[in-house]
């Protein structure tokens, strides 16, 4: 499902060649589009136009985009709540994002699920369930299926936060991937908080990446505020997995530059943290880098911004016109084997 919006296929970051500047620019544009799109949805949320929660990836677009851009057709991506940039780079259309947030029946989840809980599994994009840590073993299974089916050189990427590393499911899936030597790339974003909980209440190891040793998999650390570093490290990890190097365990550090969700003012995050290196906004850092490297001039960058806003406005306007789900037309069937569904024949619906 690669590259549906407006940028074409992106090669993974091979090194700082001329290709690299091209990849960097592309990655930056996905990050920008994600930021603009999420800000729009957040604004609609504040205006009371969104049912349910809104979760944004502000401050970790570099990590996310580096994951999405390193993947290609046939790969698997299990994004989480802060992966708008990676989703776009992987090939999710902006309309899937707006239609789902706005609850349109024509969205991929048809109003049955919302916001970040969306995907297109047939195209390798998994619709996350809320339960943290649960997507990893599903990706393992998809990779196992590829092995059975003789599909070679595919990779599965799983995105997780620091908080999710404390789940039992996390332990089980990374160990399982190691035992089966699967081409799994685990990208952990340590953004210092899980909702309100600081990492000191989540684990006491000196560095999360040390856990890789215990699982017998390769660990990588990267500065999540630095797009170039993310492209190189995550791109490299994906390449290693693709070439048969087994599971890769990437830990990227950043700071969550938003509330947990838009309902949350994140008052518990000490303001001084924002002033540290961790608190740098990866999007402005990347834009500054493009300027300083002269990879694009001011007019071009300005045009990219305008283009992102146009795309987002169009996607939102289109989605607002789409019909909401209709309970009378909903089939209320949880099984694909329709004849096995317990239903109205058995329990006549109450008349209102």
């Amino acid at each position, binding site marked *: 499902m690669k590259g549906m919006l407006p940028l074409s296929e992106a090669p993974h970051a091979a090194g700082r060649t001329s290709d690299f500047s091209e990849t960097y620019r592309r990655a930056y544009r996905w990050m920008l589009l994600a930021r603009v799109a999420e800000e729009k949805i957040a604004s609609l949320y504040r205006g009371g136009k969104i049912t349910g929660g809104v979760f944004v990836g502000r401050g970790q677009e570099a990590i996310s985009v580096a994951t999405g851009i390193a993947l290609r057709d046939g790969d698997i991506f299990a994004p989480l709540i802060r992966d708008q940039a990676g989703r776009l780079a992987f090939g999710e259309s902006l309309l899937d994002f707006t239609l789902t947030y706005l609850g349109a029946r024509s969205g991929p989840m048809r109003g049955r699920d919302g916001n970040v809980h969306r995907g297109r599994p047939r195209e390798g994009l998994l619709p996350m369930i809320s339960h943290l840590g649960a997507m990893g*073993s599903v990706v393992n299974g998809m990779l196992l299926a590829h092995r059975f089916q003789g599909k070679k050189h595919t990779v599965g990427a799983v995105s997780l936060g620091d908080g999710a590393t404390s789940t039992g499911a996390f332990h089980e899936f990374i160990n399982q991937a190691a035992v089966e030597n699967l081409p799994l790339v685990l990208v952990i974003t340590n953004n210092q908080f899980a909702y309100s909980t600081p990492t000191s209440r989540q684990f006491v190891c000196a560095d999360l990446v040390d856990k890789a040793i215990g699982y017998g998999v390769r660990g990588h650390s990267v500065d999540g505020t630095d797009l170039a570093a993310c492209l190189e490290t995550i791109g490299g990890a994906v390449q290693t997995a693709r070439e048969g190097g087994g599971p890769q365990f990437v830990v990227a550090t950043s700071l969550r530059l938003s509330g947990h969700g838009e309902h949350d003012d994140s008052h518990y995050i000490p303001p001084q943290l924002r002033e540290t290196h961790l608190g740098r906004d990866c999007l402005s850092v990347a834009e500054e880098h493009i300027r300083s490297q002269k990879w694009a001039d001011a007019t071009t960058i300005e045009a990219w911004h305008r283009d992102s806003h146009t795309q987002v406005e169009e996607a939102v306007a289109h989605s607002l016109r789409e019909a909401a789900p209709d309970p009378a037309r909903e089939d209320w069937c949880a099984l694909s084997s329709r004849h096995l569904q317990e239903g109205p024949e058995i329990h006549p619906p109450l008349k209102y």
Partner: protein
Amino acid sequence: MITYLEAIREAQSEALEKDPRVYIYGQDIGNFGGAFKATKNLAHRFPGRVLDSPISEDAMMGSAIGAAMQGMRPIVEMQFADFSTVGFNQIVNQAATLFWRSGVSCPITVRLPSGGTPGSGPFHSQSLEALYAHYPGLILLTPATVEDAYSMLLEAVAIDDPVIFCEHKYLYYHLKAESLPKEALPVGKARISRAGRDATVVTYSAMVHEALAAADELAAEGWEIEVIDLRSIKPLDTDTVLASVARTGRVLAVGEAWPWGGVTAEVLARVSTEGFNLLDAPPMRLNSKDTPVPFHPNLWGTHRPTARTISLALRELLRA
């Protein structure tokens, strides 16, 4: 003669033979052949398709779901039904919601060696069908006969949705049949295991045999008890149950599982809401006691319903 356990092994062998999408995943099921030997020799006969898993029920289930999404037909063997609760989240939140959320079906079969045997105690004896049946998106099968163990397992693998296959450990070696069946009732259809006109016992799995023994005992006194083997808990064949109650006017629902909520409660809820005027006496139900399953055979034998307690309940029902 073929046992219930051998029927399960034979069905898996046939599924592996016929369908290259099938593989089996579970603890100690490879060369060792499984804790109960349900996969004996299969790893040898189907190299690379009968895989030992780490002790990771969550990851076992999650990976089966992922593989199913990519076109495989995994069979997961839980070593005991009791341990499936460690993989509960994947079953009820991932597998059960997948089709409804995304339109992609999830053809997995989860084998749960279920139910009590003497000396097995609180953590190797559970009957969890009601727990799983509570969740939309799952199919619950509880075969009571050798023939059903075989044909329903084959059908489970063929079904495009997640199937929880509750095979009863007590029946593994105790139950034998002459041969494997050539044809079978479809999933979702109950069977009248014994016809009768005085009262209906609705039950499933190992309790079918206790109910049949109770019916034998009462037959000596002239009572004709009808015994219905539900075969599948979800979907539940309400039609067959109601038709029987229409004939007998009396119903006793029996289950080895715990009493609160559950299959017997569901059966009686349906009979009372949809067939209230068919009843000549208040409906009754009999389950295990509401405690963990005890270890000692003396306690265990009293904890669960038996032919004796079923016939006592039936006498009461017939007097009412």
